């Protein structure tokens, strides 16, 4: 059984975040993952593919969304902050990434403006493996581009 405060979080939506995709950011992701796929790196090569130019690696947007540079971990997204505070009040102070599922509809390219909209879709209490209780939260993020098309949907679960 979860508290009413936690129950009230389900369905809560965060303020949409607007992010301009630039080439340096997507290359940092490819580089940090050790992925040298020329479709991310090589203009001439990428132009010759069906994409007609450089695209971003899947999932490059960041977890849970790309945080603006002037804001630090956990302070940037109203939704995640709100959730962390309520979950801490319920006695759960930690969070660890339990799993993620994405669906990709369209490629993202440098110069695109994407909008990330997140919603808390589930908060459940479960029995942990070693006994004791744990809380699992799930946030769904829809990412659209400047044309209003959905490019990606992401579901991310955390264990608290």
């Amino acid at each position, binding site marked *: 059984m979860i508290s009413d405060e936690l129950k009230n979080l389900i369905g809560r939506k965060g303020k949409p975040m607007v992010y301009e995709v630039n080439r340096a*950011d997507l290359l*940092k*992701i490819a*580089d*940090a*993952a*050790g*992925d040298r*796929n020329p*479709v991310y790196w090589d203009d001439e*090569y990428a132009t*010759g*593919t*069906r*994409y007609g130019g450089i695209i971003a*690696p*899947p*999932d490059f947007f*960041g*977890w849970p969304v*790309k*945080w603006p540079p002037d804001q*630090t*971990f956990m302070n940037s997204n109203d939704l995640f902050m709100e959730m962390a505070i309520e979950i801490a009040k319920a006695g759960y102070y*930690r969070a*660890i*990434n*339990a*799993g*993620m*599922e*994405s*669906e*990709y509809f369209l490629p993202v390219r440098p110069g695109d403006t994407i909008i990330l909209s997140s919603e808390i879709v589930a908060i459940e209490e479960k029995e942990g493996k070693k006994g004791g209780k744990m809380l699992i939260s799930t946030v769904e993020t829809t990412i659209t581009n400047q044309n209003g098309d959905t490019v990606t949907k992401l579901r991310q679960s955390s264990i608290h």
Partner: protein
Amino acid sequence: MKKQIYWEDISVGQDIPSLTKVATTLMLVKWAGAYGDYNPLHYDNDFAVNFMKTGGIIVHGTLKRQWLIQMLTDWVGDEGWLKRIQTSFKAMDYPRHMKTLVGPDDGDTWQCKGKVTGKSETGGQHTVECDIWLENSKGETTTAGTATLMLPARK
């Protein structure tokens, strides 16, 4: 130009070409910056041990997932499309520490692996379903999931 694989070339039960990866503390800092995940769990050992009780800093689930994504996108090539990927982070992975400025110490090496579990054709779309997972040096699966990919067809 990489060689393109086609839907007709793929059979259920076949292995996806594996991808070998190593994670170092240096790479985790790079990933934290690139991905925008500044959780100290991935670079502050005292925080990891004392507060998170993970026994040490751990590899980002998102990085392990990105490795699996790379295995899949390398496999299906430019004409293929990763349609869906689901990953569950089952066990923690510990990065190698740096021995020198540029060289990692001994430690784990990971293998990204996958197997085709199904194929189908609906409305002209050629799709392949896979199980995917990440193994550490002991052969333990620390991340597991499924993926759906679209492939070009010859006809």
